[in-house]
């Protein structure tokens, strides 16, 4: 006789202990105020219920990813992978509960069991095999710079410029790397790149839950950095920045890390870059979660944009600085296939466009790619440019 269906739950201490072991300890901090749920970008999407405040409790009861029923487990997996790691919840949580870390614990378990979204599996596979999420050949990682006369890094140069995966391979984002390099050259900064020796920083794969792949990439990068004597790193992406700065030291990799906007702002203040050509447009700056909320870099990109003649910088009212809303690409979100009406990027693009801006300025490759695709799918044409690109254009060069 089949067992009677029951709605009563019991505490599953085995799952709870496994989650705690994988880093979900913050669940004990949560006192269930619920503030996280309405600060989460999913609240604004409005078509998918993502009960952030329940995740701590679900951890402690051992309910997270505990179902043995196929459809229900699929729903659970989908839920666990909805978090885009924007950390808006941590920013507002009275107790600083790290919800993304709680979910990462669940993700690690799911990755171990191979029960996670297929698109992400393919990304993890590519990172394991060719150290970039696009599946491109590692030998061609430095090709983007072939016409730019950028030396390979050696210890006589001040900075390593770490382009990151998307700017190295993606046709659109190569332009960002190009602009960056030319600006640095223009200002007389000495720097080099790693070319084919560069690997993905691993930030995204760690947040997807594939900790082993992350650690392999990390160790490989640290070895390469140390072998050529890297001391200071400039990154295009806030994601590379954050993992180099906050996570690599745990693996013995201690470097001085800068996001490109920090370097550009300094060069402008020091008058080593003086933009002279007018950029006569209304520009809205989007604070990337990983740069702003997670690393408190709010002013530098704005310093750069404000230095440009005739550029009118506008803000998204109510949703700027630490209250900025994610583009939806973090923690694996870039590769997720959510339904059209369940896209965080669309919420954000609407907020950005509502300012009447003619150009959206970003400081993160993920945001750039997310917004461009979203704007296109919305049938709109507003250009999305990186802060580096706008500055480069204002310095008199045109692509």
């Amino acid at each position, binding site marked *: 006789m089949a067992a009677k269906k029951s709605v009563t739950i019991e505490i599953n201490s085995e799952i709870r202990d496994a989650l705690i072991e994988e880093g979900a300890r913050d669940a004990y901090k949560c006192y269930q105020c*619920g503030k996280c749920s309405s600060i*989460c970008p999913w609240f604004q999407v409005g078509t998918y219920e993502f009960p952030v405040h329940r995740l701590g409790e679900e951890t402690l009861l051992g309910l997270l990813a505990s179902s043995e029923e196929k459809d229900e487990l699929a729903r659970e997996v989908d839920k666990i992978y909805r978090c885009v790691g924007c950390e808006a919840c941590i920013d507002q949580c*009275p107790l600083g509960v790290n919800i993304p870390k709680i979910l990462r614990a669940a993700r690690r378990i799911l990755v171990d069991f191979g029960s996670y979204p297929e698109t992400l599996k393919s990304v993890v596979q590519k990172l394991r095999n060719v150290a970039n999420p696009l599946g491109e050949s590692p030998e061609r990682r430095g090709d983007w710079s072939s016409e730019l006369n950028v030396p390979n890094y050696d210890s006589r140069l001040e900075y390593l410029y770490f382009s990151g995966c998307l700017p190295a391979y993606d046709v659109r984002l190569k332009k960002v790397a190009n602009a960056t390099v030319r600006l640095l050259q223009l200002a007389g900064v000495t720097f080099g790149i790693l070319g084919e020796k560069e690997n993905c920083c691993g930030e995204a794969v760690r947040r997807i839950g594939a900790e082993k792949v992350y650690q392999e990439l990390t160790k490989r990068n640290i070895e390469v950095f140390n072998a050529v004597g890297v001391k200071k790193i400039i990154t295009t992406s806030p994601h590379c920045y954050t993992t180099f700065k906050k996570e690599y030291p745990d693996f013995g990799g201690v470097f001085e890390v800068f996001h490109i906007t920090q370097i550009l702002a300094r060069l402008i203040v020091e008058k080593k870059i003086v933009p002279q050509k007018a950029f006569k447009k209304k520009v809205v700056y989007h604070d990337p979660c990983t740069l702003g909320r997670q690393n408190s870099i709010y002013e530098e990109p704005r310093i750069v944009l404000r230095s440009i003649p005739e550029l009118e910088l506008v803000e998204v009212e*109510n949703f700027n600085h630490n209250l900025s809303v994610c583009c939806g690409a973090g923690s694996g979100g870039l590769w997720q296939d959510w339904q059209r009406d369940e896209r965080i990027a669309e919420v954000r693009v609407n907020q950005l466009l509502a300012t009447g801006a003619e150009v959206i300025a970003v400081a993160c490759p993920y945001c750039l790619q997310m917004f461009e695709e979203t704007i296109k799918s919305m049938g709109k044409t507003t250009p999305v440019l990186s802060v580096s690109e706008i500055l480069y254009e204002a310095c008199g060069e045109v692509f």
Partner: protein
Amino acid sequence: MMNRIGVFICHCGRNIAATVDVKSLVQEISKYPGVIHCEDYKYMCSDPGQNLIKEKIKEKNIEAVVIAACTPSLHSTTFRRAIGHVGLNPFLLEIANIREQCSWIHKDITDGTKKAGAIIRAGIEKVRLNESLMPSKFPVTKRAMVIGAGIAGIQASLDIANSGYEVVLVEKSPSIGGHMAQLSETFPTLDCSQCILTPKMVEAGHHKKIRLYTYSEIEEVSGTVGNFKVKIRKKSPSIHYDKCNGCADCVEVCPITLENEFDLGLSARKAIYRPFPQAIPNKFTIDRRSCVQCGLCIKVCEQGAIDYELRDEIIETEVGAIIIATGYELYPTEKFSEYGGGKYKDVVNGLQFERLLSASGPTQGEVRRPSDNKIPKRVAFISCVGSRDPEHHLPYCSKICCMYLLKHALLYKERVPDGEPIIFTIDIRTAGKGYEEFFIRAKENEHITYIRGKPGRIIKDGDGLVIWAEDMITQKPIKVHCDMAVLATAITPSAEVTELARRLNIHTDTAGFFSEAHPKLRPVESLVPGFFLAGCAQAPKDIPDTVAQASAAASKVLEMFSRGELQVEPFIASVDEELCAGCRLCVVSCPYDARVYDKEKGVVRVQESLCLGCGACIAACPSGATQQKNLNDQQLSRMVEVIIGC
């Protein structure tokens, strides 16, 4: 040198015995040189415990006693009295603290026992060299100073003054009354705040025994418990109070308009002003930061009361005790950008809403929202704004918000019968007499909706607001459209408290509230003798608790005054005049002016009535001439030696 020492080890129930093997300690200590008796008991502080000590002293002719138990700050007085009863000098006693300094912080019984043994042996070595001491006594100035004239300060002043002692009541603003004067009705009985407060204000203002200094600040406090010298700066109101008759003609002509603090910016006042019509003293004051000295007020004042040249006055007086009743402030609304704090006019704090409810407020008690004066048909009340938020704001519960938001909702509903009050809450904390009953009654009768969930955002929406939250009961994301929002921002100590605490040399806790001497047993005394605490200066609390604490502080002061003299612990500095070279390093290091240079002899003496035994001069003395009684260098060295095992 004491050679017949008795050692008594307390179990303190399981507090000590769980981590210290008391029985084996008794065996070990019994054999220690000079110990003629060692015994344990479950609760040494109890009556049978004390009797046991007394009997053994008599029976075995014990000369000095070590009691191994809890911290000496808890029971040393009790045990001193006990051994005094059987004729032993009370200062031939040492407490070996094996609870706070040992059992409570250790888990392992072997380690705990080992450490307890060391602490006890150190106590034995110390008591061996103790001398019989006599505490000194000195007379007390039977006048009290109360700092802050809100309900706490007023109540404490009245209690002391009605007992026949003089009170110096100092208030920083031009009127007494504090925050309670701003409130509409008070929970849970809904008495009108002004109606129950103003009679007390009048009584304090006219009391023969109360010298009231409003618009005044503490300039300096010196001396010690029983005999403080204080300097008060009475700021010039630029008006001769003896001439001002409160007619308000000056206000009409004053051209300078400012935000009215009493209404928290919801109304305006002039540079010449009276905080509120029921102010005590009922006089006008010129806000000199904004006055342009145009002279218009001088022209209209028939009494000739206005005088721009009137200077600040410095008042010097002596008091025996000081009650600190400096009250609270609300944590700034501007800190909550997620709620549009400081940006949206219709997002107000609890005190602002009190003013909107108050019959004497800017809207005469009609609830009208600040932005456009419309009557709000739906008002959201949000609790725990800044409280219980250790990560970004303040860690503690502000205690009164749950109750006052409920009261707000109820009064709002009374003023706007078709209005809809919605309270957002994490928990509802209604600990207090009649509080839970008030909650149940109000929720049911007044149709108050509670949403369990702390909002994430408040966003402007047309001319209203929309609140984003998760309703945690139905597990649904919810958007609540409303006309205004009240944030129950946290209670924080008054801004001036940090500076005052520094000036008075009084401890504050991490949040800046004044620290009480013991959280349970000495809740109204500060850690510095002679200073007492009342009201929100010590921690957030409601009016009943504030009044109770104010009366308690007053009774502590009265206890001191009725005794008339103070006994000080005799562990003060003493000088070996043979060794003293007269270098006077001690004079500079003494915070109490207790060290005085004797020119004729070329040595520095100790004025025993001023010395508090803080030890500063002892550390400063290069020759070792200055020693602390019953804690001299020889005793300290022996204690260290036995602890480190030589």
